[in-house]
């Protein structure tokens, strides 16, 4: 089976003015001095297009903290890619927005942490909410595709109704409500962030009703907390099937969390052609087909739909990247997830820890 990558997730920096308690970036962030140059990225965009990539997601960290962002957007378009900016908005004003649009930016995804300023700033670990509102206003005044992303968790999911009203009047065409996923820093703060089952059920009802009400005006996508799911998510639509992620230092990964898996050597785009890494490298081939699968995945009808779930989560929760994702109710290690949920549903929220920025 030959796979064609369709999206390149370019983490152009790990530097970020926000310190979100649920940051899913790796615990070990890449330093600024190790970052790829403008020329490195331009070469990567061209190689990615030649491989079949259609979409470029510029993310981080905060991509705006790179002064060559406009140049990178232009290079992405020149390589015939659809260019999406995933941003906190910190560092964006009308003038810079005009530059980015002029360079060919196709789409902006702006994050919010809450609709209530005090809480939003608390979750972000920085006073950024008021600024984000100004940025949303500037985006609304221009003709550019706009998605709002709101990460929800135990401490803000009860304000989902207000979040939907906010998004409805924001000028965005699309709203992404994403429950926290427990990777990177977020895993450290898991027990403070996981919603209760009651919160989750209520949020689903609100979302379904809003989807119906806002049909044709605001598209709503949501990511469920997979801890509560019956079956795992089809993580990245399969390991090395559709997406490539490149970290700030040029390390090429199948997803943003994969560097936690021990024993895998991820090649650098500085040292190898992207085509070799995608097609030939052992790391990209490690979980690509079904040969790694244990039971119950191996004989499961769902294996072609969810690919056994997430390899990183299997490692983080069960200590084995080649195990069935423990969130699957059929997994022999599912008790790990059940115990976590029991604790979360039976206790008050815990406190969390903030991360600091790389040097």
């Amino acid at each position, binding site marked *: 089976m030959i796979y064609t990558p369709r999206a390149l997730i370019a983490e152009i920096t790990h530097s970020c003015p926000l310190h979100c308690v649920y940051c899913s970036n790796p615990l070990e962030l890449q330093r600024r001095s190790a970052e790829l140059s403008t020329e490195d990225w331009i070469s990567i965009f061209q190689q990615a297009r030649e491989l079949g990539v259609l979409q470029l997601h510029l993310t981080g960290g905060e991509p705006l903290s790179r002064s060559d962002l406009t140049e990178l957007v232009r290079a992405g378009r020149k390589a015939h890619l659809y260019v999406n900016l995933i941003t906190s908005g910190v560092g964006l004003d009308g003038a810079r927005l005009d530059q980015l649009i002029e360079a060919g930016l196709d789409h902006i995804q702006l994050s919010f942490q809450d609709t209530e300023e005090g809480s939003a700033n608390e979750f972000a670990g920085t006073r950024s909410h008021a600024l984000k509102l100004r940025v949303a206003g500037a985006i609304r005044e221009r003709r550019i595709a706009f998605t709002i992303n709101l990460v929800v968790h135990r401490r803000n999911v009860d304000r989902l109704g207000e979040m939907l009203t906010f998004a409805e009047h924001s000028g965005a065409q699309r709203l992404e409500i994403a429950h926290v996923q427990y990777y990177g820093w977020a895993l450290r703060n898991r027990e403070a962030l996981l919603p209760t089952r009651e919160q989750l059920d209520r949020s689903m009802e609100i979302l379904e009703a809003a989807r119906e009400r806002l*049909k044709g005006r605001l598209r709503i996508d949501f990511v469920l907390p997979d801890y509560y799911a019956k079956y795992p998510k089809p993580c990245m639509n399969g390991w090395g099937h559709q997406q490539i992620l490149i970290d700030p230092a040029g390390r090429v990964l199948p997803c943003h969390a994969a560097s936690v898996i021990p024993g895998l050597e991820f090649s650098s785009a500085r040292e190898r052609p992207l085509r070799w890494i995608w097609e030939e490298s052992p790391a990209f081939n490690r979980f690509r087909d079904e040969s790694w699968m244990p039971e119950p995945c191996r004989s499961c009808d769902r294996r072609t739909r969810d690919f056994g779930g997430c390899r990183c989560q299997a490692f983080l929760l069960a200590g084995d990247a080649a195990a069935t994702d423990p969130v699957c109710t059929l997994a022999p290690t599912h008790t790990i997830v059940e115990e976590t949920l029991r604790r979360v549903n039976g206790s008050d929220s815990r406190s969390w820890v903030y991360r600091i920025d790389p040097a």
Partner: protein
Amino acid sequence: MSELGPDSVLRLAPGCRLSAAGESDGESEDLLLIPEGALRLKGPARAIVELCDGQRAMREIAEELKRRYPSADALRIETEVGALLARLRDQGVLEAV
């Protein structure tokens, strides 16, 4: 959302664009790039979307298609143009002006 009719005028929504000629290098398909990914356009679909320029009404788009495909059944062209455009509008890819 209002119903589309023969007088409706459509254009691509922000963040949606056709891949330029030559961009689909080597691939025989035409792509419509959208925020969530890409849609494959088959047969005359690309031409129909191109005609959604914010000027022409749906009626005129169907007329243009009839001119381009004189041997095709006229009623069928109207039905298929209407169905494609309604679907793309519902997906948020096209917007009424």
